[in-house]
């Protein structure tokens, strides 16, 4: 494998936040500032630690890099197996980046600061774990474990309906992913039956094609888990609730990283595992993606609550990512992947900015604002930049991803590409309308007259967000170059294996119903 680094970089990156947790445990909970600084410094170091991943990443190979592998549960064949490739690299970086800024944005939290920071650091570890894990069991562990800190973040530090939102978030996600667990187990044993080796290794499991008769079902089980996380229409309703109720930083992470896990799941697991089934369901997912795009945008258009609006835009944007992925061209997938990063940055920034307004006015209703560009010029400027990034204005990051995804989609599915492109108009509608109602016009609400503009800390946050927006918008090549080999490999995997699966699947099994297959399976087992 590539990247023979001397020290376990990924382990360090994944678990470093836990050191911060340990330190926090021994700090008196009343010294809030110390707690904040410790947490912040932890995430800064974490971010710095994750930078070498970018710089030492080998270009031109799709193999996993910085791989670490030690046996974990020998009897199950599970191993502690980490690695990143072009697909996950930027998601890891995005995570460390966003977490750092989220902590910085959480300075205004006054309630249970210690617990808050601990939850956040735990969340960071689990999120990075999800993106780095190359062992299915390890992946699932991080995947579900992540729910707990997020549940607490929403439920403890959230808004008025936080409990409903938190429980809905938890249950919805969990309900989706349990079926995936069954599928993972099935794959695991299928691999065992074929090769005689117990292993959860992603690479090994990928090498064992699944019988055509069960593949669609397994695919759907995986897809359900990920589609809920994405969230795709019609599984999206947890998202507005969760976003609206979550604390600002929670929303940032939720939108910035958690949603990506869904799309990441599709590209890393769902589609490569079941290429044949993926192709079979392409139509369905393209339709759902387009519905998500348009529907999310239209619903976002008419929201009264800023956060809810931004939440629905996530539905729309992630729909675009899904569209790109299922279109299965190099450009569309790369674009989708880049769009994941972009969405994390721009929507993260938007949530943060909405949160800053909320900190000042304690309302997120659009009608309570209006004309604040006059009193908060810096804020407005940054909001505008984030808006433009979000609506895909050329020169900013959103455009590159959006255009690539759409141009690639158009290449293979012109109609969907064209329908997906409506996002450019719709996003302009909802975002600019929002900007107009919040920032423009005269100030009608007197409280707004005395709003303070951003402080130093907030400006720093916004600047940090702006840098990647411009960078990816103007010079995305380093990013794209790192993604490309992995994406190409992904496409080859899906398309190539799908072709093989069609060739090699025996007709008899093809026609067998699932029930019959299961009975057959059990018979094999029953034989004494």
């Amino acid at each position, binding site marked *: 494998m590539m990247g023979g680094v001397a020290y376990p970089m990924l382990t360090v990156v994944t678990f470093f936040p836990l050191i911060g947790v340990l330190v926090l445990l021994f700090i008196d909970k009343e010294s809030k500032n110390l707690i904040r600084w410790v947490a912040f410094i932890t995430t800064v170091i974490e971010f710095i630690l994750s930078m070498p991943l970018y710089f030492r990443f080998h270009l031109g190979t799709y193999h996993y890099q910085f791989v670490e592998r030690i046996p974990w*549960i020998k*009897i199950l064949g599970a191993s502690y197996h980490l690695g990143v490739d072009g697909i996950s690299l930027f998601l890891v970086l995005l995570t460390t980046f966003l977490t750092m800024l989220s902590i910085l944005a959480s300075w205004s939290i006054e309630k249970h600061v210690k617990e808050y920071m601990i939850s956040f650091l735990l969340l960071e570890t689990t999120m990075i774990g999800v993106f780095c894990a190359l062992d299915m069991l390890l992946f699932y562990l991080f995947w*579900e474990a992540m729910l707990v800190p997020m549940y607490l973040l929403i439920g403890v530090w959230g808004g008025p309906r936080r409990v409903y939102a938190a429980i809905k978030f938890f249950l919805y996600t969990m309900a989706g992913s349990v079926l995936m667990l069954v599928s993972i187990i099935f794959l695991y*044993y299928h691999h065992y039956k074929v090769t005689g080796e117990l292993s959860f290794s992603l690479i090994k499991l990928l090498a064992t094609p699944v019988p055509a008769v069960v593949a669609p079902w397994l695919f759907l089980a995986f897809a359900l888990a990920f589609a809920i996380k994405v969230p795709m229409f019609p599984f999206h309703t947890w998202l507005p609730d969760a976003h609206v109720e979550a604390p600002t930083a929670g929303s940032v992470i939720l939108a910035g990283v958690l949603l990506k896990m869904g799309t990441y799941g599709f590209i890393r697991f769902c589609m490569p595992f079941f290429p044949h089934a993926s192709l079979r369901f392409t139509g369905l997912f393209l339709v759902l993606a387009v519905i998500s795009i348009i529907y999310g945008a239209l619903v976002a258009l008419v929201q009264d609550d800023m956060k809810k609006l931004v939440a629905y835009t996530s539905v729309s944007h992630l729909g675009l990512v899904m569209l790109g992925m299922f279109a299965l061209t190099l450009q569309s997938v790369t674009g989708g992947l880049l769009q994941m990063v972009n969405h994390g940055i721009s929507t993260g920034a938007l949530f943060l900015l909405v949160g800053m307004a909320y900190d000042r006015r304690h309302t997120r209703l659009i009608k309570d604002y209006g004309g604040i560009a006059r009193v908060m010029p810096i804020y407005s400027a940054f909001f505008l930049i984030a808006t433009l990034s979000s609506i895909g204005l050329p020169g900013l990051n959103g455009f590159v991803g959006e255009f690539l995804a759409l141009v690639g989609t158009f290449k293979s599915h012109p109609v969907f590409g064209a329908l997906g492109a409506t996002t450019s108009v719709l996003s302009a509608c909802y975002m600019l309308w929002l900007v107009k109602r919040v920032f423009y016009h005269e100030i009608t609400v007197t409280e707004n007259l005395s709003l303070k503009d951003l402080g130093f800390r907030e400006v720093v946050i916004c600047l940090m967000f702006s840098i990647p927006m411009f960078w990816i918008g103007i010079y995305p090549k380093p990013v794209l170059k790192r993604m490309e080999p992995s994406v190409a490999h992904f496409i080859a995997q899906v398309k190539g294996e799908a072709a093989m699966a069609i060739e090699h699947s025996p007709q008899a099994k093809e026609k067998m119903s699932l029930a019959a297959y299961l009975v057959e399976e059990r018979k094999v*087992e029953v034989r004494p």
Partner: protein
Amino acid sequence: MSVQMLSVSIRPLLPVIVLLVTGMMVLFMDAFGAEGRESHYGYLGLAGLAIAGWLAFKMWGTHSLSFAHTLITDKLSIITSLIYFLIAGLTILFSPGYLRQEERNLAEYYALILFAVVGLVFMTSAQHLVLFFVGLEVLSISLYALAGFVRQRDLCNEAALKYLFLGGFASAILLMGMAFIYSVTGSLYFQDVARYVIHSHPSVALLLGIVLVLVGFFFKVSAAPFHAWAPDVYGGAPAPVAGFMATAAKVAVFGVMLRFLGMAVYPLKVHWIAVVTVVSVASMVIGNFAALRQDNIKRLLAYSSIAHAGYALVGVAAASRQGGAAVLFYMLAYSLMNLGAFGVVSLVGRKGERYVKISDYAGLAAKHPVLAAAMAICFFSLAGVPGTAGFMGKFYVFASGVRAGQIPLVVIAVLNSAVAAYYYLRVVYMMYMEEPKEEYVFTIHPAAVIALVIIVIGIFQLGLIPGGVLSASYSSFAWFMS
């Protein structure tokens, strides 16, 4: 089968003898010792358990059949013994504070727990149904007494009464089943039954016997539809005892169930898998759904334990060595988290267990963060969040189910576990997301803290690095037919 000569080796009984002696010592010291040292009996009991555990552990890897082949010492019996010792130890750690506050800190309590453990050990070491039955009765009778131990409390009495009648009824059914099996096979040795079953066609009477025995088992593990006693008894019994009942008996009965099904009547698996499957589904559904509307945390835990029995039965329905290992592992995990939960309940409940509503936990995290964290960890583990023992247990059980082709059952199980997350989360939500309504004035006995620490460590250990325990439980089922 001809009558075997008595094998004289008493070695396999050493741990049990230690326990018996400890139990007797407790009673004698109580009879002749000074007043007011009741808690010390608990520590004496702990010492006994530790010694017994050490002795049992030393036997790891040995395999022997003794006492005319009625007693088996194998990995399963040792590992389950160790689990009982652990459970009993944790229960004892939770007890002194609780009993003192209930003014029932009697030596008999500790003695009864130790004797119950003796019964448990014999249950899983039995190769003969009669030995099992007598062991079961030792356990049951201890539990009847323990359930009603705080005799001045209404609920305690009621719990004891219900447990007594229903337990007695189940015992009678179990006996009837044994009688039927005996009528067909002519022996109550597992091996003899197995020998008979392999070579003969199943008769209606034999199936009836098996089913009745299974009913007895199901009753003890509180699987639906034989679960009805559980909520009432767990709800009424003193919280530490409820924890003990909910865990120890289940571990033992699952162990025996696996021995019985996996060894004695394995060839009839088509029949018993169907039975186990149905019961498993019923348990999961009834347990989880009924728990959704519970306000009383003890009853909630009871319903949850019904559901957990259902999950574990998935592993039984897998009818494989791996399934057995999974069930064993699951039971260990389940024991830890349930003991932790009941332990916290015993602390928060205060005198007379007046605070056992879920709403009584509002804001606990703000007042007792460590206690709340322990409770939350137990509950997340019960909900099956990865990284905890509960997840690993569920995972392994479901894995065995999938491997055995029981996919519909596993799907039902995972969906149920998603439903279950709701009520677990509700408690966590109460602790963390509600404002405290009261002051939470209660003292936490240091022993209870130790127990909670052990439990939390155990939960994470089993959840993150379960390899050793998994291997051990896998190797415990080497005898499993397949």
